[in-house]
């Protein structure tokens, strides 16, 4: 089972302490909500969990059955949905997915691709000939979900994943999150949305300062 363990983690930016020292343990099969006011470090927490940022002090250990995961081995199992995640504006949805998934050695045939788009509420005919730069914000968010689902990752770090989604999109997201957790996916959601928070098995509250 995959776990992420925060030991004495503090994070400072430009001399200002964002949070810490923090002790936390995230486990596969559980949804952990990370809550706190704006600027309390929720997004930073996710970046630390994915080793996309080094902590100012303390350590973040990502392990599978006690064996530490590093670099490519970790990235191969990691997927994120965050407002900072952008796709290539001058590539189509299919080209973006083929590139990103291809970098992990995965390919989608036409049927799988169509099914995936349908699963996240995107109509293939509507996106086939458009560059991602022409997508609405909601469509981009759904595309992020599609890449997340196709990535085969078992560590999901989600930063306000319901942002820019309509009701149907939020319901879809909630259902996918529950299913993924049931499959053993480790999931952390940075959120202030009470509906997303209600999905969580546990909550880490970042007080800030």
């Amino acid at each position, binding site marked *: 089972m995959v776990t992420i363990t925060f030991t004495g983690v503090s994070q400072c930016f430009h001399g200002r302490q964002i949070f810490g020292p923090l002790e936390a343990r995230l486990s596969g099969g559980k949804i952990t909500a990370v809550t706190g006011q704006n600027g309390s470090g929720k997004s930073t927490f996710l970046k630390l969990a994915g080793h*996309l940022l080094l902590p100012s002090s303390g350590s973040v250990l990502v392990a599978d059955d006690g064996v530490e995961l590093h670099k490519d081995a970790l990235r191969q199992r990691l997927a994120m949905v965050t407002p900072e995640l952008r796709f290539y504006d001058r590539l189509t949805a299919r080209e973006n997915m083929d590139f990103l998934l*291809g970098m992990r050695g995965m390919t989608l045939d036409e049927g799988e691709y169509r099914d995936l788009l349908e699963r996240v509420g995107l109509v293939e005919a509507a996106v086939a000939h458009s560059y991602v730069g022409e997508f609405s914000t909601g469509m981009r968010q759904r595309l992020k979900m599609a890449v997340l689902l196709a990535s085969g990752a078992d560590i999901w770090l989600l930063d306000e994943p319901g942002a820019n989604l309509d009701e149907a999109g939020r319901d879809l997201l909630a259902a996918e999150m529950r299913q993924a957790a049931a499959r053993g996916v480790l999931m952390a959601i940075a959120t202030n949305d009470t509906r997303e928070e209600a999905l969580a098995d546990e909550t880490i509250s970042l007080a800030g300062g």
Partner: protein
Amino acid sequence: MKPSLWQAVKLVFVKEFTVGMRFKAAWAAMFMFALTTLACVSLALQGGVLEPRLAAALLWIIIFFASMAGADRVFADEDTAGTLLALRLYGGAQPVLWGKMLYTFFLLLVLTIFITPLFLLLIGAEMAAAGAFVLALLLGVAGLAAAGTLLAALVTGAQVKSGLFSVLMLPIILPVFLPAIFLTAASLGAGEVPVGFLGGMALYDGILAVGASVLFDYLWYED
């Protein structure tokens, strides 16, 4: 399942090429610079012939500064577009580095193939050693691509990307740049061709590429 390094490098190259062809900013900047300088040289010479050493220096100055206009974009464009996170999440360090380096080499090679015949025609140069000339161009461009890709990655987080890129680039590329000028001059008739310089350039290119490969892991991963 991880793809082979070559498969992943090809994916990065094809992505760079596709985005580059659709956006065209890097291509336009480089080719416009090259065309402008070539036009200036042509107008200044007014049909006159340039001395080989001066011609060689001028050719490499045009290639160097034209490449500065495009090579620094390989990571800066990802940063500006916000796609760097996606690339970091899904792409391993080595495929990204080698894919981008290969694309930069291709970009600079196309630029060189475009500039060189025009330049030689304009200055009325006579070729004394075509083989050495072509090898010097290839090795010089390979050095520019290797150093340019690494420096572009290094300066991506900096506030003044272009300025820093050019300042750092010159001292790093000098061991390739100077022999390239001497070889080009000799190939255009300024004395005997210093063949040994070709080996030196190849060796330095290799060091640059391997050095970039080792250093890039530290830039790409935080652990």
